[in-house]
């Protein structure tokens, strides 16, 4: 083990003490997604996670960062070395983004958040610091705690620190917009389409890669419609839907109201909320057992249920 990766870190130990072993508790980040998962039970003690970038190794494409660090700060640091991560830039903290588990709307270019968390250190319901995963991109050393904790909304443990995979920022990115092109044809036409955002009328697409590839992609796109350069859109707002990508071809069947859809992905940012089908009973049982195993007294983030958007 290299000295810095799993070494005792007094900052994490202090956090473990703060979590303790008793009483209900929630970790607050910047509260940008505070409502995800339902309302927090009243009288829950609220603490914040430790901050700071612990170690950044651009040559290895990994960064070790404490959970309370803001994603903006992290990405500013990475950008100095021409890299970024899959974490969404919505003003939140690293720990919040990992706990919620939602990828950025630029996921096709930046990668999937759930594949980016290589190692997680969290404080358990008993107040113990636990490490899962490891610092390498490839790793099948035991059960995959990073996947379990990512998206668990702090209901299984309080995230203290993560190692994230970083990626090179493409040499060129370019946003184009069209009002007459079929968004699904755009997606099919490109080898590695970047994000394709569609609101029912206008399609905005990001091309990325070497300059020469992006230019060639622009020509490919112009064979399916009229495209103009545009500014990078801001992150779409609204209720978040998650549907199979093919469902977007029949938006009339979905009661979204006004929407921005991520074509090829299946996320919709909509005026109205999605009514989710209940979990299948077998999976629900495993969920309940998982919660009981990791947090038998229900002290972590009481009231919240992972996956309720």
């Amino acid at each position, binding site marked *: 083990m290299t000295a810095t990766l799993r070494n005792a870190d007094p900052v994490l130990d202090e956090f473990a003490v703060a979590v303790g072993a008793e009483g209900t508790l929630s970790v607050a980040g910047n509260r940008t997604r505070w409502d995800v998962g339902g309302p927090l039970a009243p009288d829950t003690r609220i603490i914040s996670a430790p901050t700071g970038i612990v170690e950044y190794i651009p040559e290895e494409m990994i960064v070790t960062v404490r959970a309370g660090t803001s994603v903006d700060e992290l990405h500013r640091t990475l950008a100095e070395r021409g890299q970024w991560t899959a974490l969404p830039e919505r003003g939140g903290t690293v720990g919040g983004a990992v706990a919620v588990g939602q990828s950025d709307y630029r996921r096709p270019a930046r990668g999937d958040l759930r594949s980016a968390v290589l190692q997680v250190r969290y404080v358990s319901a008993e107040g113990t610091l636990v490490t899962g995963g490891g610092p390498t*991109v490839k790793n099948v050393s035991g059960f995959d705690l990073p996947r379990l904790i990512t998206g668990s909304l702090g209901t299984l443990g309080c995230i203290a620190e993560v190692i994230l995979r970083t990626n090179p920022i493409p040499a060129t990115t370019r946003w184009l917009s069209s009002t007459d092109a079929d968004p699904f044809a755009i997606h099919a036409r490109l080898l590695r389409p970047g994000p394709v955002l569609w609101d029912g009328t206008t399609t905005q697409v990001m091309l990325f890669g070497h300059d020469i590839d992006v230019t060639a992609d622009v020509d490919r796109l112009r064979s399916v419609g009229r495209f103009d350069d545009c500014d990078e859109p801001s992150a779409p707002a609204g209720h978040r839907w998650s549907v199979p990508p093919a469902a977007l071809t029949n938006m009339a069947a979905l009661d979204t109201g006004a929407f921005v859809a991520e074509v090829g992905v299946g996320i919709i940012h909509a005026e109205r909320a999605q009514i989710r089908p209940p979990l299948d009973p077998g999976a629900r049982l495993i969920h309940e057992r998982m919660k009981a195993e990791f947090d038998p007294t229900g002290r972590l983030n009481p009231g919240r249920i992972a996956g309720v958007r």
Partner: protein
Amino acid sequence: MSLLDRFRDRVGSSAATTGDPLVDDLRAALSPERVKTDGAQRSLLGKDASVFDGGSAGPICYPVSTAEVVEIMRIAQVHERAVVPRGAGTGLAGGAIPLGAPIVVAVTKMTSILEIDEANGVAWVEPGVINLDLTRQLTPLGYHFAPDPSSQQVCTIGGNVANNSGGPHCLAYGVTNSHVAAIEVVSPAGEVIMLGGLDPEPDGYDLRGVFVGSEGTLGIATKVAVRLTKNRPAVRTLLMSFASVRDAANTVSDVIAAGIVPAAMEVMDQRITEAVENYVGAGYPTDAAAVLLAEVDGPDEGIDIDADRIAEIGRGNHATMVRVAADDTERALLWKGRKTAFGAVAQIAPDYYLHDTVVPRSALADVLDEIYAIADRHDLLIMNVFHAGDGNLHPLIVFDGRDEGVLDRVHAAGGEIIEASLAAGGVLSGEHGIGVEKQKYMDRLFSDADLEHQNRLRRAFDPVCRANPGKVLPMGHSCADIQQLRSVPTGVWG
């Protein structure tokens, strides 16, 4: 005493195979021909491709449907017996080795590609579908299945899922976990559960994500939605020679450091290259200390930008030769050489032990130096062929098992390789898993609390330890306990 020995002791050694009421129930549920109990089958399926022996199979079932797998699980429950899922048995960590006469569930007759759903970017397949068969079926439609383990001609999708398998082209594309959207699983309680889904953010904990790589310990995968990856319009394959392994390793870490993530970067040292050349004549130079096979792919236009930069970085690290494969035939031949490396080794010595650790890319050269020193110390022949771009080492110890005491030296060297990898900041396994091979090293990487939490994850799926007991977690942290064996009739499955 090792876990394996404890299981072995439990089971006794009589050779009778009938007289277990379990078998009658299984035969009634499937069909008599698809429940095997003969010694030949059981000894064959008592092993996998690892060096570990000492497995002991109970009845071997070949289900053809999810419903039959459910039946098997229910019967296992009634008879309080363990169940071990099995694909092609090419695992290298002993994951499919049956411990203590469990029911072996071989999914090799579940081989249908059920649906290719281009609109959702997935194909639904049964777990016994062979990796390369899947890609062959997808190719005419313009797609392939990205994970391409060297064993892809024989290994199954179920095994790929269970081991989170990788391959040379997983450097840019990611290992199996990135290519599986949903998994239908028969739980240890005999329920059919859908994990994950075709939508990008299914509700709840990421149970799909944790099932991938769980080595058959969380249930049996009976249907998998694998992601379709578009075929590559343009490919450049570079072959570079180096006068030292260190130069090749440094080239690899410099390429990544330059912000290039090629489709693949594989290194072979001189010994393995010679073996490959003797075996298939792929056109590798045999006078170089190491060769690096680097591949970039993508749209036609910019393909040479990265290829040229990689060549330049190689020359900067003293490459003695840089060659670009002239056409698809030459490229295919180079890859054939790389992928048959393990077959080639069989020409040199009857036995090999293939290791699998991951180290930071910047530590590759130093760790390789240490590995060669370890080989010298133990008077063993070690060859190196590895997924260099990921830092995934595959030291290959070649030996003749008939030599007195050689296995002890092989295992001692293996242990030192693992220690050297961990000391460099690495992990125990990049793609072969823990199985029975590396259980005893788990506490070198994880604390007691870490292991206890891994066991919690497992227990949530399988509170009674029905699925593949005795794997992954070390004794004391798992339900490796012998409870499952209590109801095995004495002497029946010797």
